[in-house]
Structures are given as structure tokens and as C-alpha cells.
């Protein structure tokens, strides 16, 4: 096993350092060094989206993203969306529409929906399906998720972005 090295990056808006080995992925680093458990490894192949995080604002599969590569980057996890006082509109929409069952994949869907709405504030069904095709939900809450995206879009539009 190779030696650890120190990386510096921005995590949820704060500068941080981490000791990582070349084979550590971002999920493991977030869980073991920062106690952030919202990104979860499931398929381990970048196919299910349970491990989604944002690196420099882009959604990535953190199970395939090696930790040393976030050196100098800006990493955002689901834990950063809600403040003490308020949930993110996407999170609110997921709750209102009941867009999850077991919740294991939910952080990934929430983050990916955020990216979709950043790029298409008023997405149609095709855009929703296209953006969310890389996120799987074994409970199959897809109809509710599609609905959640639409509700979230309306919420975002009626609210100034911070």
C-alpha cells in the first residue's frame, strides 16, 4: 500500500486538508476524514449515482473519482445544500412530492437535479430524463422524482438564488 499524501481543497465552502492514498476514492475520504455520509458507495462502478458529489460545480461519481485528484478543487456535497434555517428548494420539492423511499440514492438525485436546474431552469420531461438517467433508484421512485424536479424548478424560479 502506497504512502499517504496531503491534499488541500475546498469542501463545502471551507478550506480543508486531507491525508489520502492514491487508491482512496472521494467517497471514502469524505466518510472517514470528514464524517460526511451523504455520498455513499453502492455499485462502485459509477453507474448508480448514489455517490454523486460536485467537483468544481460538476456532478461526478465519487466512487470513481480518486481523492488525490480533488487537490485544489472545490468539492460540494449534499450536506452543503441546507442551512440551519432552510432546506434547498430541491430538497423541499423531494419531500413534498415523496420522491424517495429508502433514501439511499436520494442525495445523488438531489445534487443532479440541482445541476439540471442550474443549466435548464425550466426543464421538459426529456431533459429531466436525460439528466437523471445516470442516477438509479432501486425503490423506483422515478415518477415522483420527475414530479419533484418540476416542483423544484417552480420553487427556484419564485425565489431569488442566494
Amino acid at each position, binding site marked *: 500500500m502506497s504512502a499517504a499524501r496531503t491534499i488541500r481543497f475546498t469542501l463545502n465552502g471551507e478550506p480543508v486538508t486531507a491525508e489520502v492514498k492514491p487508491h482512496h476514492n472521494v467517497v471514502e475520504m469524505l466518510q472517514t476524514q470528514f464524517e460526511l455520509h451523504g*455520498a*455513499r458507495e*453502492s455499485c462502485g*462502478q459509477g453507474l448508480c449515482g448514489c455517490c454523486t458529489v460536485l467537483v468544481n460545480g460538476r456532478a461526478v461519481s465519487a466512487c470513481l473519482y480518486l481523492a488525490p485528484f480533488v487537490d485544489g478543487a472545490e468539492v460540494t456535497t*449534499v450536506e452543503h445544500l441546507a442551512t440551519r434555517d432552510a432546506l434547498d428548494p430541491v430538497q423541499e420539492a423531494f419531500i413534498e412530492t415523496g420522491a424517495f*423511499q429508502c433514501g439511499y440514492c436520494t442525495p445523488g438525485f438531489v445534487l443532479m437535479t440541482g445541476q439540471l436546474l442550474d443549466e435548464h431552469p425550466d426543464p421538459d420531461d426529456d431533459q429531466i*430524463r436525460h439528466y437523471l438517467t445516470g442516477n438509479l433508484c432501486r425503490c423506483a421512485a*422515478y415518477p415522483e422524482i420527475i414530479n419533484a424536479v418540476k416542483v423544484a424548478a417552480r420553487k427556484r424560479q419564485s425565489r431569488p438564488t442566494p
Partner: protein
Amino acid sequence: MTTTTIPGGQVGRSLSRLEAQDKVTGRAEYTHTMRIPGMLYGKIFRSTVAHGRIKSIDTGAARAVPGVHSIVTAEDVLKVIPNPYYGPAFHDQPILAIDKVRYVGEPVAVVLAFDPHVAEEAMQQIVAEYDELPAVYDEVEAMTSPVHVHDALKPAGTFADLKHLTGRKQTNIALDFRLRRGDADKAFAEALHVFDHTFRTQKVLHLPFEPFASIADARDRSLTLYTASQSPSFVRIEIARLLGWPENRVRVKVPFLGGGYGAKLYIKLEALVTALSMVARRPVKVALTMEEQFYTITKHPSTFRIKSAVDKDGRITARKCEVWWNGGAYADIGPRVTQKSGFTASGPYDIDNVEIDSYALYTNLTPAGALRGFGIPQLVWAYESHTDMIARALKLDPLEFRRKNILREGRPQATGTVLKDAAIETVLERVAERMNWTQPFDRGKGGVRRGRGIGIALKAVISPTTSVAIVNLYADGSCVLYCGTVDMGQGSDTAMAQVVGEVLNMPAETVRVMQRDTDVTPYDMGTLGSRSLFHMGHAVRLAAEEVRVKLQALARDVGVLDGSNIPVSELFKKKYGMQAGNIVGTGTYKPDYVPPDPATGLTPNATPFWMIAGAGAEVEIDTETGHVRITRLINVADCGKPINPKIVESQLSGAALMQLGFTMFEKMHIDGGQVTNASLADYKIPGIFDVPIVMENETVEAYQHNGPFGAKGIGEVATFCVSPAIANAIDDAVGVRLTELPLNPEAVLRALRAKDGNPLEDA
């Protein structure tokens, strides 16, 4: 609160899940991501042969990997657990393979290390040698194969209906259930038409996104398990049995589950982590990868031969069912699937003469257990395809043929149990109505053909089972519910809180539901088979009612009149002089049940309630490619009175979409006992593009009179009819009949080409 009127209003509310905020913020806790101080990680070394005697296990190179704590084999397990065989139905599964391996992927050894990567690397350096034995994979061959997976049957004794199997040798038949009603032979001899078809289902698996994970922390006189389990009480009982300890020394804590669907039932990794922690004298965690789930538990592949006698009026006069369930190398709950589902194999039809033979078979494959329906989807696939085939052969409308034969309220089901609160007719009619069955239908043209199909089914709930609940009312008027039902996404915590709120007249969202912990949450048989809302719902209702009665007594005690609206906190203050005291109510529920007669399978009381589902599908088929597009999927169910309509709808929709995967593409490919597509890259599950263009879910107006507030379970029902409804629609569209799942483009195209007399060559 002290009034006897019931403002309630909690039952029937479409309340969001109590834990919703934790789930959308990523803060919900799951076993797979838990760590406890001082913990070792275990990585499992698995068998590479399907059936063989273990000649040697060389762990030398693995031990030499820096950072390895230890390597554990069966030899070490035997020192801490002398009889290390576990299982809910049979005590047949060794914690680690002893002398023999019985399927590819069976755990043989475990590497322990503080760094999971070290454990993984070392695990890959273990070398085992086997004397390979002939293996048996097919459930029908297993009936007569000279290859025997086990030397003798070892029923657990947990279930009375399996005891007679003790000591049977030289057989792969783990259970043979039979039902005999009327005189089927005579009816067949007199029949105008006889139809005889055989259907098969493939091996698929649950694949929860939180793979199996368990942590054990064994001390000299106590053991704590943190585990992703659907049945914490069973885990406690089984681990206590393995250790020879009283139950009170074993504690099982279960956070939320990242999906279960029947996978995490009874006992899975818990026995292994217990042994590992006892050997290592440290906490040990084993968390599986997605791939390893393919070597843990699956659904039963099945073969079902169904034969019906039909008279000149289109009435089914007799039916013979032979079902073979491929249980894999260890019984898990297979024998119970064989019986508890087996007795409904003749379907929701009024047939006087019925014979059912249902066999649980051992084979050299990954063990099979319950998957969202306890065997019912396999049965419905066959009997509802068969129903359509008969109707088509007799040139009868499939809906009319069903109407003619449907089992009506008050009529006896195959077991002789009379149907009550089972809205079969209503469900069938609602499916027909939503499908616009009597209206003209666009059948497509050229290379795109359209068709439609329906299906209807019933299921009995597993019985008899027990649930216990405790409601604790605090002196400020808030309360906590202790119940062992595991919320794995089905929303049980929310529904149970609604039951408490209804009885105690408080908003359900103010009720706190205790996380499952067997040190505080009382016994529950398990979160399975759509039993919880009914059984635990009753236990919770009874516990809350006891609190209400005790509170009324307390009020009288302090001189407050019935009907007063003095707050609960004031009553406690009057009684105890300050904010102090508790009121604790308990509830235990076990329904009446009469076991089936061993010779005939008949019983006047097979189940406390029936689950009823119907489905309708419209499909569009590309005749050039065999590709099937589902343009419409209708799911209708009788769930009595829904406690939480929004969650009920999600359950229907989710179950139907899961079954859509099992119907259209999911399949474990197995070559010489080896699963060749054990990853999400090679085993496709439904994604967002697989959702039918139109999907409608409906619960019919119904009331379950013996249910809590008229309700009954809903978690499985929408899986039942999806497969046959789609196969029937395919036949309707292009005139080919598929009798084996999945209904993938290759299967459809092969059938189309065969029909045209231009068959595709074998791949």
C-alpha cells in the same frame, strides 16, 4: 385527550415521511456507512466452484500482507460456535464453509484488517483447492438428480409445518407441499377441453442499493449487532441460539435500511460477523460490495406446470399445479415460500377440484429467499398467462373468461378458506375500466404492432405471526413508539405514527418512532410479506389504546371529569406534583389461524387477510427488432383503507416498476454455476427511461374489517400481475406466446421469427 370522542384524522392523511428531512439532507444513517471505534473490516474469500470438497486453504501469502490482523476459517469459527449452522427454516448454512462448498460465491474464509483495502488485497492472495463434485442447477432436474446438495435435511424447528422433514436423506427436496380438493382426476376425465402449459422464471435478485452490512461487537457476556436487517428479533433469537446464550445478552440495532425487498430478511451476515468478532475479540464490520450481493440471496427461479379442465360454458372445472422452486444451496426461507405461496397456485378462480404440488429444491446456486411477493409473482406469471392462453384458444374475451371464473366474496379458495374482504371483482373491473377494455383499440400497423393484456391475483399473508409494540407517554404529553418494524423505505415509521396519532388524538408528526434496538423495542416476527401494517398496526393500536385507557384513569384519579379538555401535561402535574411520570401501554397481536391439514393442505382459516392486485398493460412492438415498449401500465390493488394514501401510491408504483425489471430484462446469467454478470454494468435494472409512458395506480374503495382502521398491507401487491399482463399484451399484439422470463427483445424476436417459419439460429 381525556375525551372518548375520536377527533383523530391521522389515518388517511398523506403525510410526508417522518424521516424525510434526514433523507434529503444525506443525514439518515445506514449500517453500510457506520463505523465504531476499534473496528476491523472483514473481506470474504469465496468459493470458485459450485460443488466440491475443500482439500486445502492456503492463507500463508495473505497472512504476510502488512497490516493483516488475522485470517478466519471454519476451524476458528468452530472454536467459538461449535455448531455454526444457521437459517430460518433449516439449520443448514455454515457460517464459513465446512469440508464442502455448495455454490460459487459461498464464504470460505475471511481476512480481518483495520484497513479495508489491506483486507481486500490479502483476501485475493488466499488459495483454496477443491475436489470438484458433480453439481445440479436446474430445479426440475434436482428432483431426481443423483447429486445431492446436502446429506440430510435439518429443519430448524422454528416453523411447526417443517418438523416432519427431520432426518430425510438422499434428497434435494427441502419441502413438498400438497393440496387436494375435490376430485381433479374425475373432472379432467369429464372435461371438454384440457390445457397444459409450463412456465419458467429466471434467477434475479433484490439488489438493494445499500448492500448487506453488519457490525458485531462481541464482549465476554454480551454482543451488540448493528445490522441492515428486516428482522431484528429473529437475528437476536438466532444469534442467541448459536451462542447458547439467553436472548437478553444479544442486542440488535437496526438503523434505516437502504432498501430490503426481502433480501435482508431473517439472518444473513449477522452470524458471520458475530463469529468474527468473537474470534478477533474486537468489533468487526463486513459490508458487501454490489458484486457480492449476487452471492448472497436471490429470488427463486421456478418451473410451473399448470393444467386446467374447462367445460363447454368456459368454466374451469379442475386445475393441477406442479411448482418447482429453485432454492439454491441453502434453504433460507424457501420451504416457506413453497408452502405459503404454493397454496394459492391455482389463482383467484373458483375451481372445485384442485391439486397442488409445490416443491422446494436444493441446487448448487446462490441461495434463494423471499423477494417482494414471497413467490407469488412467479405463480401469477404462470397462471395469468395460462388464463389468457385458454381464453384465446376458446375464442373468449380474456376479461369475460376471468369474470366467468373469478373467485367471489364468500366462496372458498383452494384451501377451503372462505374469501372475505377481498375485492377481486372490483379490482378486475377497475383494471378493465381504466384500460377502456370495451372500446376499440389501435392495433398499429406495418412494423409496429400494439396489444394489451391484463392480469389478476391474490395472496395470503404469512400466518400466524406475532407483533408487539409499546407506546410511552411522557409527562409533557409527547410520546414515543417502540416497535420492531424496520423502515426500509416503505414508510412504516410514518404509518405507525399515524396509528398512534389516531388513537391518542395527536398529530402523527409529533410521535417519535424509536429506532429499532432489541434492547428496547419488543418482539416482532419480521418486516416481510406485507404483514407489518396489519400485525404491527394492530399491536401499535392496542398499545396506544392502553395508554388512552390509563390516561383516562389517571384523569379520574386526579378528579378531572371525562370530556374535559385539560392538557395531558396538567394531568401529570396534578398526579405527580411536577413534570414527572410515564404512562406505558403495550399491545400484542397474533391473528387466528388454522394450519393446513398435512394430507390435503386444506384449512378453514389460511390467512387473516387477502391481498388483491390487478394490472393492465398496453405495449407497442417493433416486429423488426423484437423491442417492446410499454406505453401504458395500470396497477390496481385492494389495500383496505389506506393509512397514508401518498405512501401507498409510491409503494404500488415502485413495486410495479421493480417487477417491470424482472419482467423485461433482469436476469442473472449463470455458466457452470458461476454468475457471469455480477455487477450493475452487466445486470440492468430499471432506470428513469424504463418508466412506462403512462402509469396509473389505484387503490379500490375497500375496508378490511379485521384490519387496523380497515387497512392491510400493500408493499408487494403491485408486483404480482405485471409480468403476465405484459406477456398477454405481447401475444395480443403479435400472436406469440412467451412462457419464460425475461421478455427481452431477443426472446420476442426469436418467437416472431419462429412463428414466421424463419427461426433465428442459436447464439
